[in-house]
């Protein structure tokens, strides 16, 4: 099956691409560069999603992450940094400790991974007659209905809260400390 092979090759390429981009964030000096690298990571991950039988998620990833989160972040950066060069630099701190801790975590994962992951046996993937996207839709309205509701509330809450926090300067009262 050539398609699968292609998928496999694509996986490694995308995965490698993502990891390298992520490493790029780690080493990037400029905040804006870092955010662009993050875009690349997300793109790579979206690609992985797509080849992993999760097209809808992949698209969502691209749309929400790249379209939402990253734009938010860019806004954030622009709002919180004067675009005069120096302040855009993202400084590093205590690299050694972080590296040690990072490798520590990796060390934890090393042995289990070496031993192999006993993935749950889902049995044969029987055809339901729905595409993945359709199935997602059905699930959203049935099994995950409550989750959907909760998420809706959560989003509303976050909206209200974030808007309230961000827009506080509109109210003179309340900001006790403006220095």
């Amino acid at each position: 099956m050539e398609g699968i092979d292609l998928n496999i090759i694509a996986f490694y390429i995308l995965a490698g691409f993502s990891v390298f981009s992520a490493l790029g964030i780690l080493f990037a000096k400029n905040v804006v560069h870092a955010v662009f690298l993050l875009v690349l990571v997300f793109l790579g991950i979206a690609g992985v999603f797509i080849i992993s039988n999760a097209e809808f998620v992949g698209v969502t990833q691209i749309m929400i992450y790249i379209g939402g989160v990253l734009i938010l972040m860019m806004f954030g950066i622009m709002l919180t940094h004067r675009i005069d060069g120096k302040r855009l630099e993202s400084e590093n701190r205590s690299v050694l400790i972080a590296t040690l801790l990072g490798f520590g975590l990796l060390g934890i994962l090393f042995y289990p991974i070496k031993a192999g992951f006993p993935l749950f046996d889902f049995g044969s993937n029987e055809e339901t007659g729905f595409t993945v996207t359709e199935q997602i839709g059905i699930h959203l309205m049935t099994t995950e209905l409550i989750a959907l509701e909760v998420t809706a509330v959560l989003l509303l809450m976050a909206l209200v809260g974030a808007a309230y926090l961000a827009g506080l300067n509109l109210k003179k009262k309340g900001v006790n400390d403006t220095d």
Partner: protein
Amino acid sequence: MENILLYIILFAPLVSAALSYFLTKKWAGETLVGFSLLVLLAAIMAWFKQPVSSGFELDWILAGNQNFSIGLYYDQLAGIMTIVVAIVALLVAIFSMEYMKHDGGQPRYFAMLGLFAFSMYGIVLASNLLLTFVFWELVGFSSYLLIGFWFEKDAPPISSFKAFLMNKVGDIGFLLGIFILYAFFKTLNIQELIGLDPVNAAIPNGLLIALGIGLFLAAVGKSAQFPLQTWLPDAMTGPTPVSALIHAATMVAAGVYLMVRVFPMLAPEVLTVIGIVGGITAFMGAFAAFAQNDIKKILAFSTVSQLGYMIMAVGAGFPVAAFIHLTTHAFFKAGLFLCSGSIIHYYHETNHTAGFDPQDIRNMGGLKKVLPFTFMAFTLCMLSLAGLPLFSGFLSKEMILNGLVSADHLPSFVLVFGFASVFMTAAYMARLYFKVFFNQQVAGEKYAEAVSVKVPLLTLSSLSIGFVFSMNPLSPDDSWLLSVLTSYKGIGIADHFVWVPILSIGLALSGLIFSYLYIERKMLSGLVSGVKSLTYNLSNRNFYLDDIYDVAFVSGSKTLAKAAYWWDQKVVDRVVNLMGKTQVVLAYLIGWFDRRIVDGGVRLVTWLVNFAGNRTRQVQGGNLQNYLAWAVFGVLLIFYFFELMT
């Protein structure tokens, strides 16, 4: 009310004490005299009316089924002792009225005397060791108060402190003895205990000896035996009548009395120890008396020495002899003390020079003329003390010496000490006698002793005459005391050794002459120079004698006396003081330990807790990423711990 007399004897002094302290303050002395007279009458009546071996027991402490009862017991021993105490107490009370007439603290003084008398009668009459111990401590307490009577001076408080503490050391032994007896016999009644015959009962030998040593230790403390004897000379800082009553006649004799009482409980090994200690004490006391210049201290050391005799007698196995010596000693020594009191009082009344020490014999002399009555009484008592025939001291001393000779369980040096002390006793008393009464240096006007001084002196000096105790003043065996004490179990009459009285009289006489020559030497040498031409030989010999005397005896014995005194003051007292000081130093060390180590440990823990608290807070440095690092680190720690576990 068959025991009413005993109650009167015991409680009358207490009542008088309470009255004189709280109610009849103005007539405190009269109150005490009155009550003392009552006690004396009661004691004499008891001698005739109170059946022997009578008494009563009352429940006191009931612990479980064990009853610690208290009670009184009357026998000849107690009878004689009560009479002796009552006589001396009465006379001292009378004497005190004159002696203390200018002192503001009279109510306190007479109350304490009453308290003392109460406690003393308690010791005498107590039927069991617990009650004896109770009164034993109480006499110590009243003695403490009386020694420290003049608390505003520097010396009395220290002496009283020392006296009480040393007695307390002895009391530990007493308690130990009581514990051992109780642990084995479950009773503390003396008669019952004697009936159970502890010496032959099934007690481990070590404990039996401990028992004896313990009880003896009590006597060591109270009767000022080696090595605890130093408190007694110090106790002379109290009023002189007190010294006469407590530190000569009665309380210090209580140790001997106890030994006599518990004699059947003493193991043979213990008797040896007692004999040795008594011998050493007698010898040391006598020697130390030589080097004293304080009239009361001389008498105090003499008391120590005589108590040593009594203890020796007990050790030799002749408690009756000890008891009889106790009796005779009580009178003549009280007499001597009251004489000294009379002298001191005289100086107090007449010489008001600042810095004048009315007790220093170097300031005295020629008092024969000034205080003739005192002189007479002193002479009688002194001769009795010296152990010359016809005097009471001779009788008792002979009994003791005979006993010592016949006791073969004692090392021979005890006997040597005994005889040596006879000589020295006579010598130091003569030294005192001649210095005070004959030396012409300081003579004053004739001074009329008050009646309240004369009566006690007269009584006591007449009681020092041998006829009072024995129709045949040359043989102690005929003493009526012996005959009434026959029922006493510890009786034992030593074999007679003809040489003993001869030797002892000889020693005593030579001692007297020795001192006479020494003290009166200057007078003698003047006389000698006057008749030099006539009797060159005599003079020569006299000179020769003087020489020998000076070189061989006087300076020799003086050195020895000094050495003994030095030993007593510098070594024994120092050791005791050192022990006291060590204790204080130890106390400070332990106090330091308590503050720095025990409490310091606690504070260290507190500090550590605080320190740890500040460290755990330091994690909270304010930097979020440090927080995160810490958190991740902690989590990783747990992970790794867990992974290592599995």
